[in-house]
């Protein structure tokens, strides 16, 4: 094997199991790839090379000592991963892309990350993100923007852009991300990856720094549906430490067999609107046709309130953010600006510590919740959210999944939307509805545009039906090669 870095999850695990390489060798290869490409991509905020080598060493010891008559080794033993820097890992700085948490060291590890560690994963670093996951390009990071491995002049998407760039460039086989309004699926789409936003309540958010609590979800960015299903089976499931986590069994995911007979795909007209990049529409429609060839039934469905998802989201998410981010007060953790009074500490610490987009959303949310405006803005948004959710419930009475583009266009240029927040928000128009309805969404590559940039499609399913999304995307990836393409850079 010439270069160990760049393999997917399954491939890496097979190489470890068959003794083709040790975790130490694989981890070193990843760290070398990071050394080589990080100056171009800036995917990481904090690197944990020493910790990774220690964990890899321990994984190798464990594998070495294992005997046939012992319980099976954990499923991800020795697998290098990256973790988005909004997820707590005990003892490793967690900035959330914000200067207000520049020196924050979490005193505990979040549940999903802990489950990955228990499964044997090796953490090589914390990846770049828009500040507090607020953004669609990773340009809102307080630590500089991440670049797209397919074209360094373009954004990787956001807010999990660091995780997307790290996986797409082969720095790691897998990375964790979070998705409040599309922050796993859109960067997956922009970087040619497979990314899951699970059902709300499926994966514990304990240790995920809160942004919009009724929307936040925790997923992963990888190279295939098969890899996503494996990580999902490790991370999903009930956690008493997250009151929104549902006490439901996580089904075993069966991917074998490419036959989709009996599965029904709905194509919502509201996602093929004017203004969508023609090459995106073409690639997505061709992918749907291929799923039909593989046996699925395809029919038109309507999600009539789709156009309202954007205004609903940009009231509800900032409202929740304005409450969640009240905790950054310069008292218990985070930046404190010196001042004589408590009140001035609040004003000055928050004014200095938060970046422009975070302040904008706090202001917007505060306004939407303020006396005299609550009913007209926040209250009305919550009611229209009910209608958006009902659209999906209605659609899932006649189809099993809904197929749509992830974003209206492929990756845009750095700086293209930074002066116009509303234009940036419009990038999320196709990903927001799944968060508002709480349904799962799986993004995966279905083609490339004439600039050589990946095009992503998403499948959305009913609550807790991630299994159908994995099965369909896997069937597609069995007969196509888009997910196997790698950027020239690597």
């Amino acid at each position: 094997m010439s270069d160990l870095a760049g393999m997917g999850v399954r491939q890496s695990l097979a190489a470890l199991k068959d003794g083709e390489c040790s975790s130490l060798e694989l981890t070193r290869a990843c760290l070398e790839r990071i050394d080589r490409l990080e100056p171009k991509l800036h995917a990481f905020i904090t690197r944990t090379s020493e910790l990774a080598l220690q964990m890899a060493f321990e994984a190798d010891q464990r594998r070495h000592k294992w005997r046939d008559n012992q319980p099976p080794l954990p499923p991800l033993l020795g697998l290098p991963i990256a973790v988005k820097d909004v997820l707590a890992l005990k003892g490793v700085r967690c900035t959330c892309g914000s200067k207000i948490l520049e020196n924050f060291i979490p005193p505990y590890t979040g549940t999903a990350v802990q489950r990955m560690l228990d499964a044997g994963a090796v953490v090589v670093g914390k990846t770049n993100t828009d500040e507090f996951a607020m953004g669609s390009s990773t340009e809102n990071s307080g630590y500089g923007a991440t670049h797209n491995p397919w074209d360094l002049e373009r954004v990787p998407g956001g807010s999990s852009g660091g995780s997307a760039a790290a996986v797409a460039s082969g720095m790691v086989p897998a990375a964790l991300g979070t998705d409040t309004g599309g922050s796993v699926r859109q960067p997956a789409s922009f970087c040619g990856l497979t990314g899951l936003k699970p059902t709300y309540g499926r994966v514990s958010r304990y240790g995920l720094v809160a942004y919009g609590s009724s929307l936040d979800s925790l997923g992963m960015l990888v190279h295939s549906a098969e890899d996503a299903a494996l990580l999902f089976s490790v991370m999903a499931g009930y956690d008493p430490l997250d009151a929104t986590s549902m006490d439901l069994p996580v089904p075993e995911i069966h991917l074998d067999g490419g036959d989709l007979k009996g599965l029904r795909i709905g194509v919502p007209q509201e996602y093929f609107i004017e203004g969508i990049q023609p090459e995106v529409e073409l690639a997505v429609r061709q992918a749907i046709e291929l799923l039909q060839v593989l046996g699925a039934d395809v029919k038109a469905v309507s999600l009539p309130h789709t156009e309202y998802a954007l205004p609903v989201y940009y009231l509800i998410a900032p409202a929740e953010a304005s409450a969640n981010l009240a905790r950054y007060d310069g008292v218990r953790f985070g930046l404190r600006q010196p001042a004589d009074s408590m009140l001035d500490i609040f004003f000055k610490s928050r004014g200095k510590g938060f970046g422009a987009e975070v302040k904008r959303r706090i202001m917007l949310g505060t306004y939407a919740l303020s006396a005299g405006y609550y009913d007209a803005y926040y209250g009305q948004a919550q009611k229209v959210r009910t209608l958006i959710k009902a659209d999906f419930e209605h659609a899932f009475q006649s189809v099993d999944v809904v197929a749509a583009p992830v974003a209206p266009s492929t990756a845009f240029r750095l700086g293209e939307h930074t002066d116009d927040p509303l234009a940036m928000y419009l990038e999320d128009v196709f990903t927001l509805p799944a968060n508002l309805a709480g349904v799962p969404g799986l993004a995966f590559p279905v083609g490339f545009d004439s600039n050589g940039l990946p095009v992503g499609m998403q499948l959305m399913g009913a609550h807790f039906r991630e299994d159908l999304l994995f099965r369909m995307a896997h069937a597609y990836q069995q007969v196509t090669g888009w997910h196997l393409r790698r950027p020239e850079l690597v």
Partner: protein
Amino acid sequence: MSLTLAEVEHIAELARLELTGEEKERYRQQLSAILEYVARLQMINTSQTLPTASVLPARSVLRPDIPAASLDVKDLLSNAPQTDDDQFRVPPVLEQEP
């Protein structure tokens, strides 16, 4: 929908954010544009619609009240800007003017 500078200052006061004059003017323009955009929600008749606060079915998440180990006080205090023994230290609060 156009916000006044006074309204922006009022929101910043509620949100405990110190803003520069330039920030106030920029947010005045940007928030006005965003509020104008989201105003389209007013057109939808929701008189028969209940709000969605959570997409999950309502259920009890109470647990038995059994004492268990919690995070270490020293660990928790290690991120604080200023501490005093096992406490967070802040300037006087009560002596302030109303």
